[in-house]
């Protein structure tokens, strides 16, 4: 072990993982978060026949250019302007809060959703390096374990604010997130049964060889067994996606911050960058959730007729783009649902989670296992 720590392999590992981490967080996920917010505003505006943010460009006339730069639809500078505004606003800590936990909560809401991304294979290989930050053999368990830590951020925010609305929002949110974690856990089991591994890289590789779980014909004509297995996979996909909506507190499950009852829920007392961290955490969790759906059901970075990274660096880049393209489609789906469905009532939410999703997912596990055991 000591020889490993001092060897050049060690520094190669540190260097490549740092490069991958920084590429993933700062060049892909955070820009994606800001432009998801922008897309959310534009899409909702289009759905409600408004225009949405379409003015802010990039003020390059300050640098001596003749005109400001405002490409495509306009408003592309909006996320940057928002970020600057978050930094410049007053960072107000009200006197009635429990200070250490009040500061800790936004970090705890933000950090787990970034750390979760480490186990997700977002590409095949690029110049011979695996495009996954940490190739863990317990990938799914790692993701579920770390993402549940995010609940603490919300609980602490609600409790340390010492105020009624955040308190109620925090309690509701905890209860909702742990309830839907069961459905999430059970819906992933059929995938593990079929792929026979908890490593996300191996699950992706299985789908490269045998076709995406949700679209088995991507690797040639499926046999009778594959067609039979397709039924529980579709059920698992639906329950998994519904639970993911609940886990990320998106409509129709945004009870923790239902504006009409609780103002803003657990982050009512937060302002400035601390509020922005909750916001970032929520959208990063959305991206992590979509990535997990892509890896488990939609074939990860694989696309028919596109070779993997061993065919050259160009194809490595194409694989990465395919992966995030799939994620972007799912994000659009998240936004679409948000502006289509109304919010559940709390008793309906609990009933859906505990009575329907839980039971369907549990029976589905045995349906998959039965098909695997009793068909040839």
């Amino acid at each position, binding site marked *: 072990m000591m020889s490993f720590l001092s060897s050049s392999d060690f520094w190669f590992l540190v260097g490549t993982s740092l490069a991958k981490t920084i590429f993933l967080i700062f060049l892909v996920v955070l820009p994606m978060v800001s432009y998801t917010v922008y897309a959310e505003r534009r899409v909702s505006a289009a759905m409600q026949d408004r225009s949405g943010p379409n003015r802010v460009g990039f003020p390059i006339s300050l640098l001596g250019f003749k005109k400001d730069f405002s490409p495509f639809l306009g408003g592309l500078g909006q996320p940057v302007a928002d970020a600057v505004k978050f930094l410049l606003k*007053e960072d107000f800590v009200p006197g009635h809060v429990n200070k250490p936990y009040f*500061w800790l909560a936004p970090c705890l809401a*933000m*950090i787990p959703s970034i750390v979760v991304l*480490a186990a997700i294979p977002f590409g095949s290989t690029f110049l011979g390096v695996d495009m996954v930050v940490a190739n863990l053999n317990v990938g799914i368990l*790692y993701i579920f374990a770390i993402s549940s830590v995010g609940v603490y951020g919300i609980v602490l925010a609600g409790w340390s604010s010492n105020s009624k609305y955040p308190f109620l929002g925090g309690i509701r949110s905890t209860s909702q997130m*742990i309830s839907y974690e069961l459905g999430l856990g059970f819906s992933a089991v059929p995938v593990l049964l079929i792929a026979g591994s908890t490593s996300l890289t191996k699950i992706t590789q299985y789908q490269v060889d045998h076709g995406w779980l949700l679209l088995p014909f991507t690797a040639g004509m499926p046999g009778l067994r594959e067609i039979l297995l397709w039924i529980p996979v579709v059920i698992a996909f639906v329950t998994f996606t519904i639970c993911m909506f609940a886990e990320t507190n998106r409509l129709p499950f945004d009870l923790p911050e239902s504006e009409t009852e609780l103002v803003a829920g657990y982050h009512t007392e937060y302002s400035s960058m601390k509020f922005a961290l909750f916001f970032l955490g929520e959208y990063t969790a959305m991206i992590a959730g979509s990535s997990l759906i892509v890896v488990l059901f939609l074939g990860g970075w694989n696309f028919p007729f596109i070779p993997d990274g061993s065919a050259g660096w160009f194809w490595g880049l194409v694989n990465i783009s395919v992966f995030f393209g799939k994620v972007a489609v799912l994000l659009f789906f998240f936004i679409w649902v948000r502006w289509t469905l109304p919010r559940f009532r709390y008793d309906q939410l609990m009933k859906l989670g505990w009575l329907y999703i839980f039971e369907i997912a*549990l029976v589905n596990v045995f349906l998959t296992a039965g098909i695997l055991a009793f068909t040839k």
Partner: protein
Amino acid sequence: MVKDYLPVLLQVLVAIGFAAAALIVSVILGKTGKRNPTKDSAYECGMKPEGPSQPRFSVKFYVVAMLFILFDIEIVFMYPWAVVYREFLVAHGAQIFWSMLSFVSVLTVGYVYAVMKGALDWKN
């Protein structure tokens, strides 16, 4: 082991660094306004805060938390079973299917009991 989890550690450090840097920059750059008692009070739609700030809440939330722990452990038992399932089928036949079914049906009795007792009924 070190090889697998060192990148995770780096990712954690980068995430913590990002969160801390964002908060510190906002403290440095952000405006600071005057404080007054109204601004310092808990937000209740502009009214003066009334009653305890952390009111009593329904015992149902505790019941949900307990049931969660019970069934979450069930899921954790299911994962290793799922991973070895196909290899076991080839080697020893369908026995593995029936053993997990019997294990889950025992827990299902508990689930049915909780439902019958109304532990998951939020209407009342």
